[in-house]
């Protein structure tokens, strides 16, 4: 009997102590390190983010990259100009054709060649198609980042249609390697224009679907609205480009503001901006841009000029000495090539200004003070391709 009372009083004492501890002892939650990646589904590759947490709150987040650094700038120096495009295809692998264009334009500037109008038109069409293929995947994938699995299957289904169109022209789904100094490798196949019109109509349907399914969704809005707000000045300061910049209210699009000679001037389209600068704004802008891109493609398809697709170019391409910088508004933002030639077969130096590198450099700034679930939302909404960061 005494033993049982002892046990009971002992238990009561322990329980009282524990309750006391719960009330009076402040739990120390600081200095926890959360390591996201390098292998993590949300990082689309091998980006690693080292976060310092205080409870649920992020104190600092530092992206660590280089797990896929391939040294393209160095490798370009030992390849001839036409051979470089094979590498350049693999920088932003979801919008490969768009990667080739600024490099080819830079080489053309140095050589003083201009591609014939038909080639410029087809270049612009393929450029916009790769934008649609690239960004449509984002439109679905953003759902996955915040916990909605369905949209990404829609995105894969509809992106395939665009890839089929790209494949029909270039022979490659992901790495077309189709742009040539002075023009294009081939002309469009028969019946392609009508097919592409149909695909563009489907893609507009996909955008509507995403708008209904995801953008109007209350949970999606709650997860994305006012999460990861980047003001316009900060975006400019960090060199953000593309939809990330326009979602911060900066009206800047290289297709309109610094057109390097492609056919964007010839069609009627507009640049979409959003004043909020949050994850939702970035999604919204990309959705509008995809829809706008389908309209650009439709208009261009109807107005392709006839004529040759290749300017007269020597068989062995030697690029005259000089320097040129050409950048275009790629699916991810401003992609530019600073090409230095000393008059040989190979470029002397190629500096590749990739959009994702600058876009992700804002991460330490924007992550500070956010909460753990928002890390993935913000990363997803900034939309990067790892090959585009690491080169």
């Amino acid at each position, binding site marked *: 009997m005494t033993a049982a009372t002892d046990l009971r009083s002992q238990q009561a004492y322990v329980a009282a102590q524990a309750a006391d501890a719960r009330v009076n002892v402040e739990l120390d939650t600081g200095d926890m390190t959360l390591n996201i990646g390098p292998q993590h589904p949300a990082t689309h590759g091998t980006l690693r983010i080292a976060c310092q947490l205080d409870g649920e709150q992020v104190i600092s987040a530092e992206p660590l990259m280089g797990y896929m650094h391939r040294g393209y700038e160095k490798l370009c120096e030992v390849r001839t100009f036409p051979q470089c495009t094979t590498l350049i295809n693999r920088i932003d692998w979801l919008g490969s054709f768009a990667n080739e264009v600024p490099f080819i334009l830079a080489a053309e500037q140095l050589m003083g060649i201009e591609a014939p109008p038909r080639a410029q038109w087809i270049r612009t069409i393929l450029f916009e198609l790769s934008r649609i293929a690239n960004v449509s995947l984002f439109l679905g994938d953003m759902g996955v980042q915040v916990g909605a699995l369905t949209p990404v299957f829609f995105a894969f289904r509809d992106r395939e249609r665009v890839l089929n169109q790209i494949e029909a022209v270039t022979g490659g789904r992901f790495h077309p390697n189709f742009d040539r100094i002075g023009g294009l490798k081939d002309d469009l196949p028969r019946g392609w224009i009508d097919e592409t019109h149909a695909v563009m109509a489907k893609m507009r349907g996909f955008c509507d679907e995403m708008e209904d399914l995801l953008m109007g969704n209350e949970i999606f809005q709650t997860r994305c609205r006012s999460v990861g707000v980047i003001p316009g000045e900060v975006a400019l300061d960090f060199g953000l480009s593309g939809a990330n910049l326009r979602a911060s209210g900066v009206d800047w699009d290289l297709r309109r503001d610094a057109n390097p000679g492609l056919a964007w001037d010839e069609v009627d389209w507009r640049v979409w901006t959003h004043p909020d600068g949050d994850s939702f704004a970035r999604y919204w802008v990309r959705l509008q841009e995809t829809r706008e891109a389908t309209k650009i493609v439709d208009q261009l398809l109807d107005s392709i000029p006839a004529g040759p697709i290749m300017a007269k170019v020597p068989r062995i391409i*030697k690029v005259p000495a000089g320097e040129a910088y050409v950048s275009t508004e790629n699916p991810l933002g401003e992609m530019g090539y600073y090409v230095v030639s000393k008059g040989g077969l190979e470029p002397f130096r190629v500096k590749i200004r990739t959009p994702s590198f600058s876009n992700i450099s804002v991460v330490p700034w924007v992550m500070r003070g956010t909460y753990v679930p928002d890390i993935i939302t913000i990363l997803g909404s900034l939309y990067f391709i790892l090959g585009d960061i690491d080169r």
Partner: protein
Amino acid sequence: MAEETDDAQSDDAAAPGDEAREALAAELTELLGDAVVETHIEAGQNLWLRIELEHWKTSLAALREHGFVYFGFLSAIDWSDAPEGRYEDTEFDAAGAGEDDDATSATAAETVRRGGGETRFQLLAQLHAPARHAAVLIKADLPDTDGIPATVQSIVDVFAGADWHEREAHEMFGIVFDGHPNLEHIYLPTEFEGHPLRKDFPLLARAVKPWPGVVDIEEIPPELEAQLEAEVMAEFEASGAGA
């Protein structure tokens, strides 16, 4: 036919752009004063501005105040010739090298370099002024002693985005940016030695294995070259005429 329309278009596009660039060059020279060494305008392309290294940071800050608020990129160029990342003993490089040497000697350094300069290393940055739809490429000569480039003032507190770009230039070229908060490797492992984008850093993959791309650019006999040229030309004209 196609060529005519091309020319007409490019003339129309180039003329106003170049006038604006000239005006901008004059304006920026006045703004930056003695810091500007040279300006260069390539017709229809870009504006280059070469500035003194000691005024690097102050000039960029002044440009930022002047509306060039959008940071493009920052990098460097190693202008040294030897061994240029190529390996003379391979068939491919030997074939290319001979011709290249003529080209290089024929075009003196100043015609290659936009904005001039003689040092081995040059800093390179680009800024946009979104409000006025203008962009400028900025260069600075970076003198070196025995291959170690001079220290540069970091511009991280002018443009926050320069942080990673400076880290990259640091690991790739060995340029030290004074005042950078965290000048560590960004892509390469911490213990990596050497600066890969310098021209004297060997590309080992090329040295140990012959490059299969050689076949792509084999020399074509002159008579065949002429014949192919004629064919290409005929095809070109045929397609143009068919239009």
